[in-house]
């Protein structure tokens, strides 16, 4: 690596002469070694899935969850250094809690992504700090219904606009990905970690921007993509962990939850079948 020995890679607050922050680039390397995580923004919800590499047979199956809930309606998963991921989750929970204290309502996913982006970026500009060794995927559902203000006692005025413009759509599914540099974008489908390349090309095939994929299909695709992405590191054992969040009329009623066992197992069965199918084709 060209950066080694130049001294420009030792500190966050120092650029290299060609305008690079090597500490951030090393952080990206940490991400590239982590298990694959993906997020899919479907028309009626968001699915998050992660390839949880089993580091020891002494750990209980299904325990030690990787995907965290933030507030009630947002999920977060990351690839890279796990403790860094937990730290960002705890920050996200603080942000949503303080948002509620001020605005008496849940934090929109877009606002949370913005705050987290700024937070992560802060670690790239100061000497003595180390950038986050993670790329985080944040998915959630902003309520489409009339959200009661926290602590609200009545139904409010029965006439008038009630603060809403007619014809405008409120709420819906949102998906963001935040990188070690603090860069964040909104996505239809996001992938990070070791198998991100394979996962991304699979996500692109789904034509997510058309907004046709349903949440349940999304769950099955997510399981399949994690299995596809795992192909390159087949020697390692892994567990599939999946969560989802739907609208108020959907299966999770606006809350971020684990995908129920039956559905997850069905998705895994289909994923394995699809992989076997591929193998046969290759032969």
């Amino acid at each position, binding site marked *: 690596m060209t950066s080694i020995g130049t001294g420009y890679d030792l500190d966050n607050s120092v650029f290299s002469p060609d305008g690079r922050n090597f500490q951030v680039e090393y952080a990206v390397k940490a991400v590239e070694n982590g298990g694959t995580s993906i997020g899919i923004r479907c028309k009626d919800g968001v699915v998050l899935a992660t390839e949880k590499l089993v580091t020891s047979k002494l750990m209980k199956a*299904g325990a030690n*969850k990787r995907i*965290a*809930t933030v*507030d*009630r309606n947002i999920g977060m998963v990351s690839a890279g250094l796990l403790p860094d991921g937990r730290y960002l989750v705890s920050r996200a*929970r603080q942000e*949503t*809690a303080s948002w*509620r204290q001020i605005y*008496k309502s849940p934090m929109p996913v877009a606002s949370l992504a913005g705050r987290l982006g700024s937070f992560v970026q802060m670690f790239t500009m100061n000497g003595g700090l180390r950038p986050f060794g993670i790329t985080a995927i944040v998915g959630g559902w902003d309520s489409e219904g009339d959200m009661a203000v*926290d*602590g*609200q*006692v*009545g*139904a409010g005025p029965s006439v008038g606009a009630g603060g809403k413009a007619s014809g405008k759509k409120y709420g819906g599914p949102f998906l963001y990905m935040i990188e070690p540099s603090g860069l964040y974008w909104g996505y239809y489908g996001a992938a990070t970690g070791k198998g991100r390349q394979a996962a991304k090309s699979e996500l692109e095939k789904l034509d997510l921007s058309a907004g046709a994929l349903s949440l349940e299909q999304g769950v099955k695709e997510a399981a399949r993509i994690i299995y596809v992405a795992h192909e390159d590191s087949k020697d390692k054992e892994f567990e599939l962990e999946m969560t989802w969040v739907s609208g108020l009329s959907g299966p999770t009623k606006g809350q971020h*939850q*684990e995908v*129920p066992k039956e559905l997850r197992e069905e998705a895994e069965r289909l994923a394995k079948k699809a992989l076997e199918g591929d193998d046969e084709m290759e032969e």
Partner: protein
Amino acid sequence: MNHLPQAWGRPRDDVYGAYDASHFQMSGPTQHSSRPIVTGTSVVAVKFKDGVVIAADNLASYGSLARFTDVKRLRTFNSKSVLGFGGDVSDMQYLDRLLNSLSVRENYSTSIDDSGKSDLDAHNLHRYLSKVMYKRRSDFNPLWNHILVAGLGEKDAPFLASVDLLGTTFSSPTLATGFGAHLAQPILRRQVPDEAASKELSQEKAVELIRECMKVLFYRDARSMDKYSIAVISKSGVDLKEDEKLENQSWAFAEGIRGYGTQVN
């Protein structure tokens, strides 16, 4: 015309009296609430064989003024327990938000695998609330409420308990706050004198009993109204109705009242 610019726009002391600068209160002693402002009246509740019924009317009064007529004083917690608030409405809203943030935080450490078994139940909630209320009274900054906590406690047994602004707690098969403690509690106790009687009581009887109490309270409590909320908590969950009307009122008894107003005998 006054030629002193520093006096322009200011009320003259000889006309209006000196300004009471204490209203600024930018510094000085911290002020705490010394009385409730917007208030809700009674909450009544009874345990029956597989759950609890609880009710409160939808009125928030400003002194004797019926100020807000669409105020929901029954609040669900974790879709498992119901709180009935009497007393100050703003303190109720504060507690509602406090408990909401507690619920969000608790939710982080519980997994879907145990299907809500590790959620805080009514018993846990009551203990938590009693500590909050006692702490606030000990700081001379009370939350001006009397609260009934209804739900299912250990082993899904019906749970009903109360906590007030002093942090005093007690539990009973029937409970009522405020005016209800005087008017509804005797009616409730006649039907449900003890724990054994509540284990015999059916849900239908319990609901009927509570509705009867709401009616009596509306007849006699001047700070009550005929629109109310009622919740039934049982193993099948919380059934909360927030827009009930009192039915089959009979004001015939009013004719017989003597000794008030213009009728003195």
